């Protein structure tokens, strides 16, 4: 009985996802690109980098990279803490 309830929930969720994806805009035609056009046009003047993706990651959105570095540091600290008893010789 438990498995049939799970299978019905999964089927319902699958129908919902497929229906909502088919109603999206067509692939390859983004609608509002004002911010990205500004970044592509001005990334070489303001940051001096040829790579627009790296200038977005480290300069325009550097705060998100700070949060990601914190998550990576917390995960490494958590792994070394959980397995501390066997990590010595």
């Amino acid at each position, binding site marked *: 009985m438990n498995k049939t309830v799970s299978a019905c929930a999964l089927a319902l969720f699958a129908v919902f996802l497929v229906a909502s994806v088919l109603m999206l805009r067509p692939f390859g035609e983004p609608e509002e690109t004002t911010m990205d056009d500004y970044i592509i046009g001005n990334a*070489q*003047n*303001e*940051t*001096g*980098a*040829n*790579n627009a*993706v*790296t*200038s977005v*990651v*480290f*300069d325009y959105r*550097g*705060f998100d*990279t*700070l949060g990601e*570095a914190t998550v*990576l*540091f917390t*995960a*490494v600290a958590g*792994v*070394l803490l959980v*397995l501390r008893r*066997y*990590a010595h*010789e």
Partner: protein
Amino acid sequence: MSESKIIKTISSIAFPFVMIYGLYVILHGHLTPGGGFQGGAIVASACVLLLAGYGSREIAKRIKEGQLSVLESIGALGFVSLALLGISTTFFYNFLAGSHSIFGRIPPFGSNPGDLNTAGLLPLMNISVGIKVIAGLFAIVMVLAFVTWKMGGRKQ
């Protein structure tokens, strides 16, 4: 635990080439696709290749995970202090782009062959994040491999 002589030799030969490629991807992050995270993952996979060839007991005799932890903290503190250096204008201000300092040229607009001297604070941030990712990923894999080997001797 450790593998045969052929595997040990081949992994020792392949390790410096993969490391050079990974350091190239880290340093040229502002010119070609790549950057700190991608290049750090490549160098960490070179170190894991050496770990798989020699066995976790040999590597754990030479490198303690405390040293890797110190290296990772140096990378993280370097990243935050580079962000705090331009605090007079704002947090994360790129004060080296356009000035007559170490990384200060502005490239001409449009397609150009890349120049390593450009892009301000970005190569320094790439190097700090690269050191952090190398130390973090290698510490995770080394501790997991060593603990799995040590737990294999106790039958529950």
